[in-house]
């Protein structure tokens, strides 16, 4: 037996869930079609078979019910891992997440909490999914004190962050970049490991500009950094990994060094989380900034179908923005 297995991102999720369920019998998975079928993306494959139906089951088709039920489970002392089939369908659960889960501990004066809650959902574009199978709703949750928001960008992170999320004492929204569920392949430890929440990863050290992103955008950012390198531009690349609370210190330090920041996400520009990052960083790095902080994001429309490629912030748009920033 080796220590690592080569697997893709969705297999790493499945492996993370398996690891969590094996380690703690209080861990329960629930959601639409996640039982025998193993979920529409196969995240829960074989878990019902292995751990029994009471611990891994199909729910009726109601996201608000799934979230509410999972909050109740968590309040009772179980560790609830709920799947929302697509992040686009998390909105019926918005009240349960924002008014309930996020405020559960606070409003009770810590008499009660639902920290055992994790809500997983595939998110983002890239699968010809149009308006309702492509959205990136992370910013909605990042404006909600009491929640944590986590997004992995590769298989190794997926397992380690998921295990940390499941065991975190606060409710966590865990968005999975479905565009790279199969495309992102890497060595994943067979062991039970956690990656600390709230800590960004410096993927590449550089000196001219800081490129910041999360999820599937890291691939676009990586490609753009390569294009830039070919022109002699040295990019520092940071993968945020946890959006709430986000690792501001790491970003501040980087921007103080590079003097430039570009943030990229798929969600529409206005009100997206890049705005928060830009606002926060201009405050702390005002005197170091040599150019305005640049946002390369989706545009302010619903997510399209036929013009998905045009809509999405890709390596070329990031590359152009890097050059503009350097030329400022």
């Amino acid at each position, binding site marked *: 037996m080796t220590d690592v297995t080569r697997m893709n991102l969705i297999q790493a999720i499945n492996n993370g869930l398996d690891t969590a369920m094996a380690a703690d019998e209080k861990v*329960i998975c629930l959601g639409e079609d996640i039982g025998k079928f193993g979920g529409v993306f196969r995240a829960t494959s074989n878990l019902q078979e292995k751990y029994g139906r*009471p*611990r891994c*089951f199909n*729910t*009726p088709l*109601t996201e*608000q*019910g799934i*979230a*509410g*039920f*999972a*909050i*109740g*489970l*968590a*309040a*009772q*002392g*179980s560790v*609830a891992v709920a799947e929302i089939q697509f992040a686009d369908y998390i909105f*019926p659960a918005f*009240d*349960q997440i924002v*008014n*309930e889960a996020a*405020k559960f*501990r*606070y*409003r*009770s*004066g*810590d*008499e*009660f*909490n639902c*920290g055992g809650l994790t809500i997983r959902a595939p998110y983002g574009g890239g699968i010809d999914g149009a308006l309702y199978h492509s959205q990136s709703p992370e910013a909605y949750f990042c404006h909600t*004190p*009491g929640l*944590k928001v986590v997004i992995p960008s590769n298989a190794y992170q997926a397992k380690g962050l998921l295990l940390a999320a499941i065991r975190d*004492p*606060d409710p966590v929204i865990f968005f999975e970049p479905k565009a790279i569920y199969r495309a992102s392949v890497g060595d994943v430890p067979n062991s039970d490991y956690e990656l600390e929440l*709230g800590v960004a990863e410096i993927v590449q050290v550089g000196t001219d500009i800081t490129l910041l992103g999360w999820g599937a955008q890291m691939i676009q950012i990586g490609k753009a950094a390569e294009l830039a390198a070919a022109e002699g531009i040295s990019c520092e690349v940071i993968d945020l990994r946890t959006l709430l*609370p986000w690792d*501001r*210190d790491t970003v501040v330090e980087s921007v103080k060094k590079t003097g430039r920041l570009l943030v990229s996400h798929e969600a529409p520009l206005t009100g997206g989380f890049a705005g928060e990052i830009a606002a926060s960083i201009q405050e702390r790095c005002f005197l170091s900034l040599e150019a305005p902080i640049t946002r390369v994001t989706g545009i302010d429309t619903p997510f399209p179908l036929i013009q998905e490629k045009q809509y999405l912030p890709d390596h070329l748009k990031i590359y152009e923005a890097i050059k503009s920033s350097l030329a400022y």
Partner: protein
Amino acid sequence: MTVKSPPTVAPVFDDGSTVQIPTLRILQADGTLISGAQTPELAKELAHKIYRDMVYTRILDERMVGAQRQGRLSFYLTCTGEEASVAGTVAAFKQDDMIMGQYREQVALRFRGFSTEQFMNQLFSNAKDLGKGRQMPVHYGSRDLHFMTIRSPLATQIPQAAGYAYGQKLAGNNACTLCYFGDGAASEGDFHAGLNMAAVLKSPVVFVARNNGYAISTLSSEQYAGNGIAARGLGYGIKTIRVDGNDILAVYAAAIAARNIAVQEQRPVLIETMSYRLGAHSTSDDPSGYRSAEEEDEWRQKDPIIRMKNWLINQTWWDESRDEDLHKNYRKEILEELKLAEKCPKPPLSDLITDVYQDTPAHLLEQFESLEKHVAKYPDSYKVHGENS
């Protein structure tokens, strides 16, 4: 597919009006039993406790509405008229069954042992409030008493109760969940999600729909067109019963049976208690804008507390002089505790940021530090209101 349904060749529509859902009644207004009715097993001590807690709650409610009028309290909301619906149900449950209420169930909390001081601490948001002064008055909660902290958003506790009870089932300790909500809350999507999930996933939860005829100003005829909330229970395949919510014996009998079903059969139960909100919706409300004094008077005749008192007296378990003493003592106790709680210091500023997360993250600590500095600069402008200076 999975439904049993005989074939028919007649295209007949059914709007449910042929489905009879009777109302369980045992006790009459004068305290005697309806003919043919059976008293549930109810020991004298327990009957006394139920009665005392109902009286206590009535007095607490009167007193606090008064205190609100005097400006000593920002907000209050009574259980008045519905004490039996709540006391009769909670009395049938075990102390460690979880209660998830709406907000009008303070008698359940009293039944569990919440002290007058604890009520007052919450109502006056003082430093001793278990909820750390964070929520409006009447948002009680107690981990020790297995009474989930009340929240304002309606119906959210219903799917949560289904989940909580499912967890209890897996834990295998024969506990269950008791979940209250109103006729108005039952219109929320969360009601549907919660009852259906409980039915499908077989959660041991007893839902108590307090049908008091109103949701603030909205009549139940503007809330639903079917046969109350009970008719929906039938639709979910949930064992359902309707009771006269002003009849303590009927409520208790139904609740005892309901808990048995929930725990023995590991499935949900729905009890609909038919009653009336005798007071205003809350101290912010004035019902004269939407209902008549006559209607209120009619229901005052059916007061659940008087009815129970009459029964107790008929049983020779109670008498008027004991009743007077009880009232007097409770009034005194409540007034004394009220005064103490009013004077108790408010929670510290640091409570503003704790419990957002288990461990307060750096960005929030930083925000708090600058807030502290600011408040220190302008101490007079940030006196906590109600705080003695």
